[in-house]
Every structure is written in C-alpha cells, then in structure tokens.
C-alpha cells in the first residue's frame, strides 16, 4: 500500500504539472496566486542573496516578469520553487556580471580566495534593514558575519527546505559543492550565532 510520502509526492507532482500548464498559457490568475504564495520566500531569498532590500524588491518584480516570459520552459518535473529561485539567482548573477564582470560564485566563494560578499560593504547590511524586531537584534548582528555564499545555501536548505539535489539545480553546481558549502556554512552559522547571541 502506498505510504503518505508517495501520496504527498504525487500531490506535489500534480501541483507542479498544473503550474506548468498554467505558465504555458500565461494564465494571469495563476501568476497572481503564485506571486501571493511565494512572495515571502522569494523576497527573503533575494534579500539574503543581493544584500539589499531595495535591490531585492527590483529583482522580485523582474523575476516574476521572467516567470511570465519563460514560463513555457518550466516542465513541472521539479519543484516550482526550485525553478523560481534559479531564475531569481540567474538575474542576480547577470546583474553582478554586468556590474563586476565576474560570476556570483567567484565573487563570493571564500574557498576560491575571493572572499567578497554580495552585499556592498558601504551600504547598511540588509539584515540591519530587514530584521526589525528588537529581540532579534543579536541574531541580526550575528548573521551579518556569515559570507553570502554560505547564507544562500543555509537559507535554501534550512529555511526553504530544498533537497540537496534541488539546491544543486538552483545553484548550478555539483551536489558535492552544495554539501561542502552546507557543512562549512553550518559551522560558520554556529560560530556567528553562538558568539553573537552570547555577546
């Protein structure tokens, strides 16, 4: 007898297929619903990746325009959110490339001797801008210490709860790279938050 996992994966597969069909038709009602449904997750991801609330807002809108235009490319075989995040990330990479003529990965991967963060160091931190609750001030200060490349994988894994293979698709990197970033990111997170919260 099929278990609940099978039931839910079938249900999610059906949902993805129905989204794919709607995107093929450029169904405006479906797009409205998707924008509502994924607004928080996409915006949060973009804030973490771009390092700026204003920029995240621009990319948010541009991502949905791109979803409308390229909707026919989504086949419904993978999770919609993984495809959505991949589109958003590619937009950010294009912007980064036009700005710095370098890729997001080389810009942000400390293991490649390019310990540059996505966030502009001259601007106030995105987390300063976006985490408003006073009780979260310590957390906010601590999260700033995490390089963007690790923040990104941590967000995708532990906030968005994407599977590692889905993350590899979003990030266009091998699974082994995702894992190594996650392990390193977890270590950095623990150090940053435990140090930050304690202080």
């Amino acid at each position, binding site marked *: 007898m099929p278990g609940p996992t099978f039931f839910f994966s079938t249900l999610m597969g059906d949902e993805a297929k129905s989204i794919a069909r709607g995107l093929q038709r450029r169904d405006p009602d479906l*797009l409205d619903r998707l924008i509502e449904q994924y607004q*928080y997750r996409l*915006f949060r991801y973009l804030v973490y990746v771009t390092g700026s609330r204003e920029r995240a807002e621009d990319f948010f809108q541009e991502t949905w325009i791109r979803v409308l235009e390229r909707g026919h490319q989504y086949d419904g075989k993978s999770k919609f959110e993984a495809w959505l995040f991949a589109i958003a990330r590619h937009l950010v990479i294009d*912007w980064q490339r036009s700005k710095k003529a370098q890729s997001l990965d080389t810009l942000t991967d400390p293991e490649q001797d390019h310990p540059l963060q996505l966030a502009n160091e001259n601007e106030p931190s995105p987390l300063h801008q976006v985490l*408003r609750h006073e009780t979260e001030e310590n957390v906010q200060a601590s999260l700033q210490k995490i390089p963007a490349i690790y923040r990104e994988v941590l967000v995708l894994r532990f906030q968005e709860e994407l599977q590692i293979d889905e993350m590899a698709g979003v990030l266009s990197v091998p699974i082994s790279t995702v894992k190594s970033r996650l392990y390193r990111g977890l270590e950095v997170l623990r150090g940053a938050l435990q140090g930050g919260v304690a202080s």
Partner: protein
Amino acid sequence: MNENIHERALQLIAQGRVEGIPEADRNWLRAHMEECEFCAEHARQTDSSLRLLRTAAIALPDGLASRTQFRVRLRAQELREREPKRRALWLACAVSWVFGVASAPYVWSLFQWLGQRTGVPKLVWEVGFGLWWSIPALFAVAVLLMESSRKGEQTDWINQGS
C-alpha cells in the same frame, strides 16, 4: 576519550542536520553524547543556531505583491498584443519561403535570360539570384534582432542605479 571519536561525533552532528544519518549512527551518536558533554553542547548550539536562522523574520515591503501583479499583468497584455504581429511576421516569412521555393526555377531562368541579354558575367547574375533568395530570411533576422535589442533595453532598468 579518543580524539577521533569526537571528530566522528561532530561530523555526524553536522551530517545529521545537512543530509541525515543512518539509524545505527544516530544510536551511536546518542550514546556518545550521553557521556560527552562537549559534543552534546556542540549539538545543542548547532540546533539553537538553526532555530534562530529559521525564525529570523524579514518584513515584506508594503504592496510588493500587488505592485508585482500589476506589472506582470501589464507585461502579459503587452505580450498578448504582440503575439498576432509576431504570428503575422512568421506567416509572411513562411509564405515568402514557399513562394521562393516554388518560383525558384522560373526566377533562375529569368536571371539567366536577363544576364544573357545584358551581357553581365554569369557570377553576377548568380549572386543576384542568391540575394533575391536570401532577402526574406535577412529581413526576418533584422526584425528579430530589433525585437531582442528592444527587449534588452526594457531590462536595462535592472542594471541602472546599482
């Protein structure tokens, strides 16, 4: 206690959070942490960090969804309006191509006859025939290039002000 045992425990703590660990490893880790305060504290700190990350709230800008929905609807309308034009363009290209194929032997004869009448070298009227043949395709390419450059201009806003 052996150093390697702690290393294994710390590795399993991380692995358990990132990709999961088998039952046997979980049991071993549980037993180890009952005896080792250092590793148990490490696991607690890791869990507490992940909890803090998961609960870190980000405030959504006011009206972000409705503004985006409006822009997306506008763009959808624009694409819908452009669709018949695009279809007409492709139809014109197809008709032109079919006509070109069907009339090629006659046009070839015409170019040959004109070439002989005017006395131009064979190569010249053959090139003329080639140009006549490729003009619809060149026209279609020009239109597509113009369209893509216009699209590029539309997305340029994202690069501005950054």
